[in-house]
């Protein structure tokens, strides 16, 4: 099957199609950089979407739970080993992704006889101030984009992801309030879940808010918060809707 270049390309394309098909029912997650910290938001079953990685690092993702778990463990192992052998300040997201998990994902994706990772992720690193934050959008094939501010959305369909990210960036722009950012992210989550486009026909704010409340009744809204003013080394805290008054 892979003796000829064309066959190999075809196999990789088939694999891409297979991965996209497998994760298309995944529920979106978001990461937002604010002046007070970074919020990561997802809707799942509790400890299923948003995770702490290290002192200033966190992860949110969608896809197969077993694959998400493998990547989470690999990142935690790498971060703690780095911090122990050097120092916690030396743990950097750019290195964790660029030299750690991204090449592994790429390798795995192109080894067509191995099972591919069925994941889409966003990773966050808290900086000393908002402009120094890193939000890395990491894909199942190892490719990634780095952002230093704003919102990063992770949605199974790339067109919807771009739309949701643009809409959320417009809505969140200038906001410093975690509560309103979480509310907006959940509104975007509801629109994506219901197939609403982010154009002039988008439902009203009241409808969006009522929508996410109703749809999350039997689920857990997972909110990770990396607080910039934390007095502890570990800046991560898991928040609930009631913590935010939502």
């Amino acid at each position, binding site marked *: 099957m892979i003796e000829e270049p064309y066959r190999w390309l075809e196999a990789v394309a088939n694999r891409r199609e297979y991965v996209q098909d497998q994760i298309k029912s995944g529920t979106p997650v978001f990461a937002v950089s604010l002046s007070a910290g970074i919020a990561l938001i997802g809707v799942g079953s509790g*400890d299923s979407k948003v*995770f*702490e*990685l*290290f002192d200033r690092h966190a992860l949110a993702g969608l896809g197969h739970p077993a694959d998400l778990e493998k990547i989470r*463990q690999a990142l*935690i*192992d790498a971060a*703690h*080993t780095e*911090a*122990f*052998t050097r120092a916690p300040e030396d743990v950097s997201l750019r290195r964790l992704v660029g030299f750690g998990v991204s090449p592994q994902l790429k390798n795995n994706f192109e080894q067509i006889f191995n099972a591919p990772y069925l994941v889409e992720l966003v990773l966050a690193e808290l900086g000393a101030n908002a402009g120094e934050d890193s939000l890395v959008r990491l894909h199942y094939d190892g490719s990634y984009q780095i952002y230093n501010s704003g919102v990063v959305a992770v949605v199974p369909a790339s067109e919807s992801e771009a739309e949701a990210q643009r809409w959320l960036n417009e809505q969140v722009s200038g906001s410093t309030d975690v509560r309103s950012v979480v509310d907006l992210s959940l509104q975007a989550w509801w629109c994506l879940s219901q197939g609403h486009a982010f154009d002039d026909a988008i439902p009203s704010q009241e409808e969006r808010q009522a929508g996410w409340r109703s749809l999350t009744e039997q689920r857990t809204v997972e909110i990770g918060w990396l607080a910039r003013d934390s007095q*502890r080394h*570990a800046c991560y805290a898991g928040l609930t809707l009631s913590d935010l008054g939502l």
Partner: protein
Amino acid sequence: MSELPNIPGDFLSLLANQRLTPLKLESLESAPVETQATTVFALQFDGGVLMAGDRRATAGNNIVTETVDKVLEVDAISLLGIAGVPATAFEMARVLQSSFEYYRRSQLQQLSLSAKVRSLARLLRENMPMTMQGVGVVTPIFAGLEGARGARSSQPQIYFYDPLGAQFHAVSYAASGSGSNTIRSILSYQQRFGNPRPDTMEMKRAVQFALRLLNIAAEFDSATGGVNPETNHHATIKILDENGVKSVTPEQQAECYNL
């Protein structure tokens, strides 16, 4: 280290997989005079556990520094007070910090208090060759809150150790280091006959009591540094209550000192 089984969530197993070995110190015949950290103690008060330590480190007759922190926050619900050789003690604290946080993050739950207490005992046992040679002796105290799911107790507990790793649960107080005999005597008297007893003191009174204890220990032990807010000599004091660890700042100490 290489003989350790690969236990999920165990930081020492991770280090072994990476061929990294903490606490591997070699002693020499002509070993230099070792630096020692001196007095730490913990007591139950009305609001939880208070752990305090002076800030002096000595090497023989020399005072090496007056700014050592011997009471360390291992994680959000655990405190470690170190007495003995700082080189080994700080490394133990670092291993524990990494271990507890690694377990919590990877397993998505807190390590139980019993396991934390045993982790420190295990490090002390691994340090036994150094202890038996008379160098690298560490006798820590530990305070922790049960963080495991379904835990029965929400009260912070105090533990103390011998240099070989035996662990003991302290009901009211524990002390370690060269000034600890003085402190233990006073605490024993105060707990039995005092009014108020330490375990009924409110926080400010307990902090004042701790500062006075350190000053009395410093009178009898040259390796224990005293406390005097006017000359900027403070202690390290941390509180562990049902909400976790809090530090008592030098300003708060000065306020309590002058109550």
